């Protein structure tokens, strides 16, 4: 079941179209990555889902029905541009934000205590916000985003501003939240985290959804025709044995072993490739190359931009 669906969202600002017919569907209990270059419209989409701005057209469905004003209590949103009141004390501020999410003061206090202990930041309680570093403030913001235990969590660039250690802590917390049953939608530029965490992705470019799906399917789709062949022997012989249906994309040579990436076109298969090279080389390994999300991201965006510049 999809916990969150946006249908044909369109949003126009005075001089440009920020979102053009964007539809996504976030299945319950998954981690959903929203990718895209800067200015593609990710933040606008997240703001619309959080009812901060409204769409010009299209609709948002949440928890199986059209979105309602009260749904905001069941959503935790960490915005991209996040700040805190500099003059307030950490504890006081966290309680304020938790109460705005609908928690009572004692309940907020209890849950904050739990989270502060978990992240080992109890010592910050009486500090002023202005004394915290950016990463420290981000931790506080993360805590208050999840404090009301929402069913749907939305993070806009959750890892920006964190050092690798803290980014890892936050990543593990997000995965743990998913295990506890929450659904997570987040936008990021960090492709490594997408591969590690995401079940589904959507790629938004130039206000449009240009790629959506389960991460494994997406990677299969973009990697099905390149194979990595590892062998002992002469690279020249191997390349001479290839017919017009194959293309040597790249190769590396290390300690007498050659790794060659070979692209197979639609008229051939990986088995036929193997038949061709077995007579000329001693095969050590053969596997399909599944491109990293980073490669797919760059490839898809560049291709899209190329085709749409002409039109």
């Amino acid at each position: 079941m999809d916990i969150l669906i946006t249908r044909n969202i369109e949003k126009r600002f005075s001089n440009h179209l920020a979102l053009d017919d964007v539809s996504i569907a976030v299945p319950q209990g998954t981690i959903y990555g929203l990718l895209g270059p800067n200015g593609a419209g990710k933040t606008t989409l997240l703001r619309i889902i959080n009812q901060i701005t409204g769409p010009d057209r299209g609709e948002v469905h949440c928890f199986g029905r059209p979105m309602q004003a009260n749904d905001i209590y069941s959503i935790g949103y960490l915005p991209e541009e996040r700040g805190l009141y500099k003059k307030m004390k950490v504890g006081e501020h966290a309680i304020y934000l938790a109460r705005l999410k609908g928690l009572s003061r004692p309940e907020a206090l209890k849950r904050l205590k739990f989270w502060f202990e978990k992240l080992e930041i109890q010592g910050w309680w009486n500090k002023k916000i202005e004394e915290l570093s950016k990463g420290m403030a981000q931790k506080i913001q993360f805590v208050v985003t999840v404090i009301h235990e929402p069913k749907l969590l939305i993070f806009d660039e959750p890892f920006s501003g964190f050092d690798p250690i803290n980014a890892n802590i936050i990543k593990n917390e997000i995965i743990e939240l998913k295990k506890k049953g929450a659904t997570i939608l987040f936008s990021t530029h960090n492709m490594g985290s997408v591969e590690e965490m995401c079940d589904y992705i959507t790629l938004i470019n130039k206000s449009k959804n240009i790629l959506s799906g389960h991460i494994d399917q997406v990677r299969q789709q973009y990697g099905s025709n390149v194979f990595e062949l590892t062998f002992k022997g002469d690279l020249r012989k191997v390349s001479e044995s290839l017919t017009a249906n194959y293309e040597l994309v790249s190769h590396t040579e290390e300690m007498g072993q050659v790794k060659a990436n070979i692209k197979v076109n639609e008229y051939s298969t990986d088995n036929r490739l193997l038949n061709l090279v077995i007579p000329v080389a001693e095969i050590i390994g053969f596997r399909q190359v599944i491109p990293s999300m980073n490669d797919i991201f760059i490839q898809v965006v560049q291709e899209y931009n190329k085709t749409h510049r002409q039109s």
Partner: protein
Amino acid sequence: MSKIFLVLEREFLTRVRKKSFIIMTILAPLLFAGLMVVPMIIATMDDTKERSIAVIDDSGLFKNKITETEYLKFVYLDGVTVSDIQSTFSESGYYAVLYIGSMVANTPDAVILYSDKQPSMDITSHISSAIKNEIETQKLKTYDIENLDDILKSIKTNVRVRTIKWSKDGEAKESSSELVFGLAYILSFLVYMLIFMFGSQVMRGVIEEKTSRVVEVIVSSVKPFQLMMGKILGIAAVSLLQIVIWLILTFGLVSAAGSIFLDSSKKVVAQKETVTNLMEQAGVAQTVTEAADQPSFANEMMTALSNINFVLIIGGFIFFFIGGYLLYAAMFAAVGSAVDSEADTQQLILPVTIPLILAIVVMVSGLKSPDGSLTFWFSIIPFTSPIIMITRLPYGVPTWELALSAALLVISFVAITWLAAKIYRVGILLYGKKHTWKEMWKWIKYKN
């Protein structure tokens, strides 16, 4: 609604805990009270240093004729010129040298006062009136009127206009136009200042939230309108608390100082009585006792003060201040939402401040003619009514005008708040650019 209250609570508590709030709350009444009490104290204190002034009288008319006071003596020098005394002036011990030219009766600027200090206004006006009186007497004498001195004494009069107001039910109340004028002036200026002060606090708060990016975090759980309203109402609560403390402290301080002051003025009255007794024995009692029959100025002020409807004025003051504040605060919030720093507000703020400044200009003429048509219209139009209605209030305002003005104020702040919220909602999420009123007008028309 409960979210507006949460925002309100935070705004109120963080502001009230600030040192600047506590200092302002305590210092301002001291300042107000000082402004009221110090002139009273100065008025009771006379200049007590004895000064002597050398007189060089070329006209020969004034020898021993210039009236002396307890602290001002005149020494008449013969056969000395101004230049003679100038060289030795610093050792002579004189406060000043008064030169009276020979043609003084016909040329008004023939009298010159030389000194190495700037002589006080008291001294110059004392001298000029003394010389003027003397010349007038001299001139009168040339008409050869019999018993001139007696006639002059008997025609000396002193006139002060008392004002008594008839209310509709035929009651006559002692009033004081000076007092009403002062009250109207101070209160309407105060409304102007407070609207400006607390309005720009709203604006600064919005800019602070925007530049620190808290606003994004807050609007994920609160509607922008709730955030704006919470802030405006929170600051309104701060301002009310401050005004109430100011009122109580100022009244307390003034009445404490006033009781000390009144004690000393009673002594003066007692002194006068003994003088009267002495004069009665001397047989010149008549005129003086007549004078004593008139109510003393201080007493008159007290009755006029007690006849002012303070409940109406303070109630009206608080209502029109809050109404005006709410009207302007929403506009200040809209302006704050459209900029990234306070430095950028100057152009945008102009349309907001012009009506306020206009109101202050109209107030000055309103003080002269509180029932004039200009004053009337500006006291009805919502953007200036908070100030101008307060100007008129101490003079008395018909109930229907008060009700009309109040109703229009309420309607317009609801409308303005609604419009400002539309601008605010868009503005707070747009960074990095200074926006114009034209763009803000477009934001008003955005659907969501």
